[in-house]
């Protein structure tokens, strides 16, 4: 297996990347960690005529704390996020999700920006970012703009990134006092893409849940916020009755599909079981 022939550029500034993108349009693709791009090129599912390697843009890498939010550069590798004390403290949901993302070799290379821009419907990070109310920073020729994660993911592998734009950073609000996170997914094997997964974030006060944000992945084309199930838990403590109500409400929120790995019915069953699990985890602290 070998990619088809392409030209290669390794720019040293974001401006240079933007210039190449505007010149080459759809024919160009950005190489960050390459852990999603390279498989598609090896399988010739994608055949760009120009690969723009952004690994020289060191300014796009790193995690910084800025007041009430964390800023994660697009080129920050998963392994750095996984091992970051700042992430563990201020965005524990991200830290919880990290071990479920593929395997160590892939996390050594894969990047935050790459995962988000790729927008795989079964990926963990997009759902986490939606649950946390994160913002995506996008840079184009007119400068930088920010878009809420919940607006960024528009469809299957489709995002708000426009022609000639590059994703440059993610901003995540630091976890507020009294809030907790939980994460779980079900995959055939550890490290595989999930058949169903959920990111959960809520305020928990003496066992009472409020402001719950349950966001599922691998159940639709984008991360899917379970608004009804989340609302069903408002002001409730976590017990058999409230869990059953949230599970019932989930039927309004998600419409899973059949695929090779499991049926829609099984996926819905998994979603309900995962709901029970993350709610119990949130309540237990």
């Amino acid at each position, binding site marked *: 297996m070998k990619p088809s022939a392409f030209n290669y550029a390794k720019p040293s500034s974001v401006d240079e990347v933007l210039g190449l993108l505007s010149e080459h349009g759809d024919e160009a693709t950005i190489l960050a960690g390459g852990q999603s791009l*390279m498989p598609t090129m*090896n399988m010739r599912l994608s055949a760009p005529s120009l690969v723009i390697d952004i690994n020289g843009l060191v300014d796009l890498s790193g995690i910084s704390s800025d007041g009430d939010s964390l800023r994660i550069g697009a080129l920050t590798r998963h392994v750095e996020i996984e091992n970051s004390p700042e992430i563990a403290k201020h965005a524990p949901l991200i830290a919880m999700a990290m071990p479920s993302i*593929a395997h*160590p070799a892939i996390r050594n290379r894969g990047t935050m920006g790459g995962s988000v821009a790729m927008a795989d419907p079964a990926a963990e990070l997009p759902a986490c970012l939606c649950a946390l109310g994160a913002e995506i920073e996008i840079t184009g020729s007119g400068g930088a703009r920010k878009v809420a994660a919940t607006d960024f993911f528009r469809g299957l592998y489709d995002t708000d990134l426009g022609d000639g734009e590059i994703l440059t950073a993610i901003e995540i609000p630091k976890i507020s006092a009294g809030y907790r996170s939980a994460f779980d997914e079900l995959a055939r094997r550890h490290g595989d893409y999930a058949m169903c997964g959920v990111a959960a974030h809520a305020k928990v006060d003496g066992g009472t849940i409020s402001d719950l944000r349950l966001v599922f992945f691998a159940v639709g084309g984008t991360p899917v916020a379970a608004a009804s199930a989340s609302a069903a838990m408002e002001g409730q403590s976590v017990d058999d009755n409230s869990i059953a109500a949230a599970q019932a409400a989930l039927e309004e929120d998600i419409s899973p599909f059949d695929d090779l790995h499991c049926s829609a019915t099984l996926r819905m069953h998994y979603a309900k079981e995962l709901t029970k699990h993350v709610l119990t985890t949130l309540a237990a602290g």
Partner: protein
Amino acid sequence: MKKHHISATINGDEVDFLCETSETLLDVLRDDLNLTGAKEGCGTGDCGACSVTLDGVLVCSCLVLGVEAEGKEIETIEGMADGDELHPLQRKFVEHIALQCGICTPGLLISARSLLEKNPDPTEEEVRFGLAGNLCRCTGYQNIIKAVMDAAQEMRGA
């Protein structure tokens, strides 16, 4: 497409090579440099047979371009033994019969060495998760886990 001139360090040796943009690091190692220890199992990062380290970090060489190797230090299975002296992991793989067909073995050894560098005293569960990116279709993994645990103990001097 013009070829790119790349300078890298491979198993401690400074190496120059010409590569096409469409060659992965694995293609370069196997086809241009004749280092055929790393194998292509899948080309998608699922099997780990192509594992090497890039600046000390474990990667799938099928998911890195040859041109990305510029200025990097690469270590492959060919550099693991010290002359005729096998690395403890290699010796324990032989002792525990932790291989059958051998296709996955170079990747597993590189991956296991990387794991033990980060965690010299892993639990069995940590070894299983640490090596989960390396598929073996022959052994059933039991002897691989035993070999890695045994090698870890020896390498700790315990």
